[in-house]
Each structure stands twice: as structure tokens, then as C-alpha cells.
């Protein structure tokens, strides 16, 4: 309740300050105008293309992150020495994404979705791999013994014992991985790209078109808050039987 009141108050303050000119119109346009711009932008074909490009990039990057991250986490758990040795690199990669190498990837792959997918995928891979490792480590020893005593096959051991036991603990990492994929994609598009929602926001800044720039910023904000809300709800559902 208070939360919504704070958000509403913030919007009202922005509306008033932009309307009265306390915040210059070159800096920010009023929320009502952003809404009006959005209504006229969203149905256009170009917005459709940008949104489709951004969303497919995010999904591909996240899928790669998931498909590679979970086996990597399992590997780091199975081979503790590798986990220990690689830990500093992975920990560095956690907050120090590979996006430093964006110019390199641009030089090698050219200006298309490829470099963005690679970077966003590497950003989403690391939290997924790390939480998978931690989750597997924290499985109760009795479950391993149980699997042994019922002489489960390796396949059964992974699918029926480890996977269900670790899922609630892995999910926060998967959620973070998805959020990182979103951040990586939008940030990379924003720097240098040919298409996409992030690109469009940077493009309108360079055109000094503040209203349209804010409309695209609003799209990014709504998208990421929505993603976060959906994932948080999902997380609560998955972890319900644990908590």
C-alpha cells in the first residue's frame, strides 16, 4: 500500500516539476506525455521489429546460459578441485561481465545480434552455474545415501534425486541469470547495435528527441520490472514446499 503510494507520489512529483518547467523539457518530459508517446509508438511496425529483436536476443542468450550453465555447475560440483581453482575467475566473471570484450566480438563477428547474444549469454551463465554448484553442495547427505540404498541408476540419481532436491535452490540463480540476460542485451544494444529497444533509446538521445527517448526508457523499465515480478512469483511458487 505504502509502496504504491510512494510510486504514485513520485510520478505526481515528476509530472508537476516537468509541467512547471522545474525540470527542463530537454531533460525529461512529463509522465503523461511519455504515455501519449508510447501509445503512438507501440502500434508502429518499427517498434514491433525492435521489440521482437530484443526479446529473441534475450531468450536465445538466456537459453544458452541455462543449457551451458547447469552442466557447468554440475561439473564444478563433481570435480571440487576444478571448482576451487576456477572459483576466482568465475567470481570475477559474476560481476565483471564479458562485455569488456564487446569491441573484440564486434571486430570478429560484425555488427549483428551475434556479439550481443554471446555477451548476454555469458552474463546469464555465471549466476546459473554458481547457484547450481552451491545448490548441489547443500543437498542433504541422506539423499545420496538413499539413492545408494535403493541402487538408483546414475540417470535416476540425477533426474529423480538431485534435480528435484536442487531445483528450489537453483531457481534464484536462474532468475538472476534471466535478469542478467535482459540487462546485457539492453545495455549492449544501447552502446552499439542496428536494431532493438535499447538501441532506439540511445538513437533518440543522439537525435535530441527527448520524448521518444523517454518512451523507450519507459518500455525498458516496464519490461524489466515485469520480468522481475513474474520470476519472483514463480520463485515463490517453486519454493513454497520448502519454506
Amino acid at each position, binding site marked *: 500500500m505504502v509502496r504504491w503510494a510512494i510510486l504514485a507520489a513520485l510520478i505526481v512529483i515528476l509530472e508537476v516539476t516537468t509541467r512547471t518547467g522545474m525540470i527542463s523539457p530537454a531533460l525529461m518530459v512529463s509522465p503523461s506525455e511519455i504515455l501519449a508517446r508510447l501509445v503512438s509508438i507501440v502500434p508502429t511496425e518499427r517498434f514491433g521489429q525492435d521489440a521482437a529483436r530484443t526479446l529473441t536476443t534475450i531468450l536465445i542468450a538466456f537459453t544458452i546460459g541455462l543449457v551451458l550453465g547447469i552442466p557447468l555447475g554440475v561439473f564444478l560440483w563433481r570435480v571440487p578441485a576444478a571448482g576451487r581453482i576456477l572459483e*576466482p575467475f568465475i567470481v570475477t566473471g559474476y560481476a565483471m561481465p564479458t562485455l569488456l570484450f564487446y569491441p573484440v566480438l564486434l571486430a570478429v563477428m560484425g555488427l549483428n545480434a551475434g556479439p550481443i547474444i554471446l555477451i548476454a549469454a555469458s552474463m546469464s551463465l555465471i549466476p546459473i552455474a554458481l547457484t547450481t554448484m552451491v545448490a548441489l553442495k547443500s543437498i542433504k547427505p541422506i539423499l545420496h545415501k538413499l539413492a545408494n540404498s535403493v541402487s538408483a541408476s546414475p540417470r535416476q540419481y540425477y533426474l529423480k534425486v538431485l534435480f528435484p532436491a536442487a531445483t528450489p535452490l537453483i531457481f534464484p540463480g536462474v532468475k538472476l541469470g534471466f535478469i542478467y540476460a535482459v540487462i546485457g542485451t539492453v545495455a549492449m544494444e544501447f552502446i552499439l547495435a542496428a536494431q532493438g529497444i535499447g538501441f532506439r533509446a540511445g538513437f533518440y538521445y543522439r537525435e535530441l528527441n527527448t520524448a521518444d527517448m523517454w518512451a523507450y526508457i519507459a518500455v525498458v523499465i516496464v519490461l524489466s520490472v515485469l520480468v522481475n515480478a513474474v520470476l519472483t512469483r514463480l520463485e515463490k511458487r517453486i519454493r513454497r514446499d520448502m519454506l
Partner: protein
Amino acid sequence: MSTDVTIPSFPQITGHREAKKSRVIRDNLWRAAVLVALVLLWAVLSSTTDLVASPAASLNALAERFADGSIYRHLDATLQAVAIGFCIAAAIGFPLGYVIGRSKFLGAVFDPLVAGAFAIPRVIFFPILLQIFGVGVGAQSAMAALAAVFPIMVSTTAGVRAINPLLPKLARSLSLSPLQTVTKIYIPAMAPSLMVGIRIGFSIAFINVIIAEFFAARAGLGLQALRAYGMLDLPTMYGIIVLLAAIALAGNLALWAVERRLGEKA
């Protein structure tokens, strides 16, 4: 690892410690080997395609930049922006995170807001910062501060909540002043999670300064790297990126080592 309180009369403990020490050395050797392997991989890649400059050429180009002194201005701009941005983020993030962590009400109100803000790619606000601060170190620092403040807040909040509830009671029973309670009880108890906040905050500040420089700047290593890409001066570009990666890795490893030590003590 830690050098405090050794009890020489227990050979078991020293033996264990020595075994641990040799393991640490072995691990570090392996880590060095990983780095060497990466450089080798880079060398192999560079011999197969023109698009990848060789390690030697890149380091030469970088050394040249250092020799003629043209890089110092950019190095300065980048490091300055990271330092200022991180300090602002720490000055705002630690107290705010602490307050949110202490109060149930504020936690209930702000947790989802902070989580939501965490999910937004904050670079998207860089154009606005550019309009406020103009192109320059100011905008870069503001970007770093804006990006780093949320991870610092989140880890501080988590640290406050994880404090053993006995500790505040202990503080009360010793009738410590509020200042003493914070400095003698809370900060030592929270040290590991504060370090996590500092490390992640540093990295995020660093990376966001670079992104911001990729976008628009007067001086800075990110700007130089992208400019070298534009002029197809690939050795310089690779050299600068190696320098950036080295700074990031070194800073991260130093902070991570401190974090590990604190974690072991706790």
C-alpha cells in the same frame, strides 16, 4: 591463510596448516596455468584470422601508448570515475541498506522496489546523466554511482538481517551507546556481507564506467578501445581491453581475498 593465534605445541594443527598451505600454492599454480592457457588460446586464434591481433602485437601497441604517455589521461579519467562513483554509491548504499534491513516496515515497503530497480538495465539512464552533467567524468561517475548503489544496498540489507539476534541483546546488556553498538557489534558481524557489497559494487561501478565511455565520453579507456575499433587499429584495441581486464581481475581478486579472510574468521 590467517596468521593469528598459532599454538605450536599441537603438531596436528601445524601439520594440517602446512597441508593447507601447500594446497593453496598448488591451486594458485593451476590458476596461473589457466591464465597461460588463455593467452595461448588467444595466440592460436590470432594466427588463424586477421580479425584477432596477436598477443605480442597488442602488448606492444599498449606499451607504445604508455611510452608516449598518451594513455595516462584516459587511464586517469576511467579510474577517477570508478573511484568517485563507487564512493558515492557506498556513502548512499550502506546507510540506506542498513536502515532498510533494520526496520521491518521499511523492508516490506522497499524490498520489492529495490529488487525491481535492480532488474532494470541502469545504463539506459545514461543519456539523462549526460544531459545533467555534460559529457565528461561527472556523467561517468554518476553512472557508476547509480549502478553500484543497488548491489551495495542489497548486500547490506541481507547482512543486517543475517545478524544473530543475540548480538543486539548483548549490546543492550552491556549498555553500549548506539554508536558503539554499530561500530563494535554490527559492523564486525556484518563484515563478510559488507565485503560482498564492496566487491560487487566495485565491479559494477567499473563495468558501468566502461559502458558509459563506450557510449559517450571525452576521455577514458572504454572510449579509446571503441575508437581504436572504429579506426581498425586492432592491436591497440586488444591491448586496451587486456589492460581493462587486468585492472578488473586484480581489483576483484584483491577484494575477494579480503572477503575470504573475513568469511573464514567468522
